[in-house]
């Protein structure tokens, strides 16, 4: 089975491609704001990850935490998917 991180990377690349955006190299400390996706891009990404990973950790979470870096973003999903 594909790792959560790999799934996220692939989906981000797909969304960036569709929206005609250049994606920054996806390092853990990359700020999401600098990633190349805008808020609509992230909305699409989160909707698709909900379908492929079966979870929307942001809506499911009780506290309204939103990650700042790519590494944190992946971690939210890794925790949520468990």
């Amino acid at each position, binding site marked *: 089975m594909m790792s959560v991180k790999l799934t996220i990377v692939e989906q981000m690349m797909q969304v960036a491609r569709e929206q005609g955006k250049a994606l920054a190299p996806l390092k853990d400390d990359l700020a999401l704001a600098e990633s190349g996706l805008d808020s609509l891009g992230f909305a699409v990404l*989160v909707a698709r990850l909900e379908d492929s990973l079966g979870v929307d950790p942001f*809506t499911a979470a009780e506290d309204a935490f939103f990650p700042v870096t790519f590494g944190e973003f992946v971690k939210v999903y890794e925790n949520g998917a468990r």
Partner: protein
Amino acid sequence: MARAEPSLRGYLAEACAAGLFYDRDAAVSLADLACGTCLGGALGDLAGRSVLLAAESQLTTALALVELDGVARRITIVPPDLEADHLGAVIAGSETDASVSDSGSSRLAGFEVPVRAVSAPSILPTPAAPAARRRTEWLLLTSGTTGTPKMVAHSLAGLTAAITPGRIAGDPVVWGTFYDIRRYGGLQIFLRAVLGGASLVLSCAGEPVAAHLARLADRGVTHLSGTPSHWRRALMNPAIRSIAPRYVRLSGEIADQAILDALRAVFPDAAVGHAYASTEAGVAFDVNDGLAGFPAAYVEEVRNGVEMKVVDGSLRIRSLRTASRYVGSEQALADAEGFVDTGDIVERRGERYYFVGRKGGIINIGGLKVHPEEVEAVINRHPQVRMSLVRSRRSPITGAIVVAEVVLDSQGDDASAQVELKDDILKLCREKLPRHKVPAVISFVPSLQVGAAGKLARRDG
């Protein structure tokens, strides 16, 4: 003095009706009905009463309507999908003091109705039917998906104002309707058949589309009507090839270019027209040029006694065909000038107006607005798509996001082909729509639910 408005039975006599009304189990001659009765001698007891018409079958409903018009004070037409919980409110609000049902109906059990009659699909000659002289009020129920349905009052004159009485030239006309005749759109087809003395093929409850199409073919249907959703469902059925109507009519939902083109391709010799009508506003106009939307001139000039204007994007209509009022509710049906707000949002592009969606159906994507119907219209143009449903899904980032469920023309099993097809549909959407209107997710589904009123069932998740 003006000539009295004819009753439905009067129209039958005038048209020297030669047609028959059919359903799966019976056929009734209109000539017999013109001077007979389906009510087993009970019509006299119903004279002057407020009659609740709650039959199970469309055929017994159709026969009873012909008899009751001009005799009953009021006819309240109960649609087949009226929830049992709402029946009491309808009976009270319409001041029902008589009912007509049929052998298949038990919905009035437990209600106090002083006079009960039964409509049967067999006509007995009647020596002395009560004269049809009254101006019967017709109550139709709206097909709203939430809350108690509203009761909308019409007169026969208003209901038939868009119809030219008498026979249509050429070979005998056989009407068919995917719509139930207990809804405004279907009732228009029933009335066209009666005023033209033509035949009418009705469906039975729960009858599969293929069986209905086979019967339409057997009876040689020439004029066939339904919502775009009805037609998309019919087009997915191989039995569609067995019929060859001369006239194909769409109403009740937005007719997009894709469905108009698909019908033109399947029925190259037929006239394909879409009509705009609603239970409250009545029939506003027909469009017969094969194109979606309608000419802007329709708004700028009074046509056939119908005036239209666009207020805040919403189409408003004033004509003698509009309903007179809501019964059992204080709510005003029309504005101070007599215009009915349809709640249908239109957008002008060049010399044409296009329907883009419903006032209440807007999806808000981080402050940007989307009508589901405008996205569906784009998706439906893909050659491999038969129909689609666009709805909102909550999003932690933009509040909502657009997602689409798509029914393909033929379901392939090949997973990689499906991925490619999704990309292809998304590409089409990106070409035609601003970014926020492009679905975030597309899923392929085997079918979409179409409600009893023939409209795509919309729900938000």
